[in-house]
C-alpha cells in the first residue's frame, strides 16, 4: 500500500500501520451488511442544476505567473521546477 501511495515507511512504521489498518479495514467491512442494490452512487452533494451550470465563461484571465508559481519550489531554475534525473542517457 505504501508503494502505491509513494510513501517510504520505516520498518517500525510498517508494523504499526499494519495493525492500525487491519483494524480499520475490518470496521469498514461493515458496509457489506447494507443493501445498496438500487441506489445510485452519490458523487456530489448538491446538484440541482445541470452539469454546466456552475462553469464560468471560457474567457482567459491573467494567470498566477511563472515567478509566483516557482516561489515555493524546492529547487527552481531557469523558469522550471528541477527534479532528479528521470531518463538515463
Amino acid at each position, binding site marked *: 500500500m505504501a508503494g502505491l501511495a509513494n510513501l517510504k*515507511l520505516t520498518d517500525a512504521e510498517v508494523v504499526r500501520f499494519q495493525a492500525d489498518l487491519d483494524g*480499520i479495514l475490518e470496521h469498514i467491512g461493515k458496509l457489506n451488511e447494507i443493501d445498496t442494490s438500487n441506489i445510485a452512487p452519490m458523487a456530489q452533494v448538491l446538484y440541482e442544476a445541470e452539469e454546466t451550470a456552475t462553469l464560468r465563461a471560457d474567457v482567459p484571465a491573467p494567470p498566477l505567473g511563472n515567478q509566483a508559481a516557482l516561489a515555493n519550489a524546492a529547487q527552481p531554475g531557469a523558469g522550471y521546477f528541477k527534479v532528479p534525473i528521470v531518463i538515463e542517457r
Partner: protein
Amino acid sequence: MDIPSLSIGRVREGLLSRRFSAAELAAEALGYAQAENPKTNAYLHFSPERALAAAKRVDEQIARGEELGPLAGVPVAVKDVILTEGVRTTCGSKLLADYIPPYDATAVIRLERAGGVIVGKTNCDEFAMGSSTENSAFGPVRNPVALDRVPGGSSGGSAAVVAQGTAVVALGSDTGGSIRQPASFCGVVGVTPTYGRVSRYGLTAFASSLDHIGPFSRSVKDAATLLGVIAGRDPHDSTSADAPVPDYTALLDGNVKGLKLGLPREYLKDLMSETGDLISRGVKTLESLGCEVREISLPSTDYAIACYYIICTAEASSNLARYDGVRYTFRSEASDTLSDMYRNTRGEGFGAECKRRIMLGTYVLSSGYYDAYYLKAQKVRAIVARDFANAFEEVDAILAPVSPFPAFKLGEKVDDPLAMYLSDIYTITGSLAGIPCMSVPCGTTAGGLPVGMQILTRHFDETTMFRLADAFERAGLPA
C-alpha cells in the same frame, strides 16, 4: 481594553464612539495574543503587518465618515489550512513549514474587505486530519479551559483562540466535525455551513466533497455575522452554491415557538451520562421556548463511519498526491531518482495520521477494490443523505450531541486511531449529507469541561439553525 470580552458589536461601538482606533485595538490585540499564546500554542504565527494594514484601512474609512464593513476592526484568526497571501501557511505539516502562499483564499479576501483584522494563523491537525490537534507537526494545542487536555480537532487552534480570548472570531475548516467538535470541547460556538455555502478556494483540500470553511465565535450572533461575510457564490469554486445569502443576524428574532425538533434515537442510545444529561437539559430549554420535540430515526447511522472514512481517505489520497517535493517547498535530501524523491519526501514529511489515511485511501481506490469500497461508500452516502431528507419531512431541525465525551487528556487517545474515528459518529453524518450544522455551548460537566449541543437543519437553512441556537443561548440551561 479587555481583549477577551470583545465582540463584533463592542468593537464597532468602541470605534464609532472613538474610544479607540482600529490601529490601537490591533496593536493591543496582537500584543495580548503574543503574550498569552505560549499557554496554549493555539497560534502558529502572527501577521502583524497584515493586521496593522487592515486596521489602518478601517481608521481611514472612519476618518472619511464612510460606512464601516460588518467586521470593522475585529481581530480574527485563520486556521493554517486556509491560504493567506504572503503569510506563511503550513497546514500543520512539516511539508509546508516554509510555504508562503501566492494568493488569498476567497474567505480571507471577503473577511478583510468587511474590515476584519487578521491577527495570525492557528494550529491544527496536519492537513486537517485528526480530532485532537495532536497530529500537528508543530506541537499540540492545549485546551484553554483545561490546559492538560486537548482542544479537539482538527481546528483546535481556532477554537482555542476564541475560548482564550486571543481573537474575537476565527475561521476553521470542517470535513467530518473539525469545527463542531473543538467548539464543543472549548465551550465556544462553531458553525459548519451547508456544503457549497462558503467557497473552498484557498482552502487546502483534504476531502473535496466534504470540506467546509466555517466560523468560530463566542456568540451565535457573531458567528452569523462572520458567515454572512464569507458566504456566497465564488467563480473560483465551481462547487460554491448560487443560493442567495440572507442577512442572518437580522433574522435572529428569538421566535422559535412551534418549531419541530427531532432527536435521533440511534444517537442517544450509547451516550455517556454527563454528556447525555447536559444534552437532555438543552433539549428541555428548547421545549420551554415552545419547540416541539420528538424522536426520529436515522437508520443508516451504524454505517456512517465506514462510509465517511472510505470517502474522505480516498479523496485525501488524491488531494495529497501533490506533495511530492516538486512544487511545495519541502524535498527530501539526496534522492537518486525521481521515484525515490517522491517516496522519501512523503515518507519524511507526512505524520502518521496522514500516512494512514493516504494508504487507506489509495487502497480503497485501487483496481479490484474500487467497487467494493469506494463505489459502495458513495451509495451508502446517498442513503445517509436520504435518511436526513426523510427526517426533515417531519421536523425542522435535528438536535444531537457533538461528541460522546468532553475534552480528553493530551496523549490519552493517540494509540488507537480506530477509537478516535468512532468518536466522530455524531458529526460525520451531517458532513456526508452536506447539511448545515453547528455546536452551541450546552453547559459543563462536574469537572468543568464544556459540552456542546449540535443543531442540524436542511440545506441552506442556516437561518433556522441560527435562530434556534440564538434563542437557546439567550435562555440558558434549566437549573
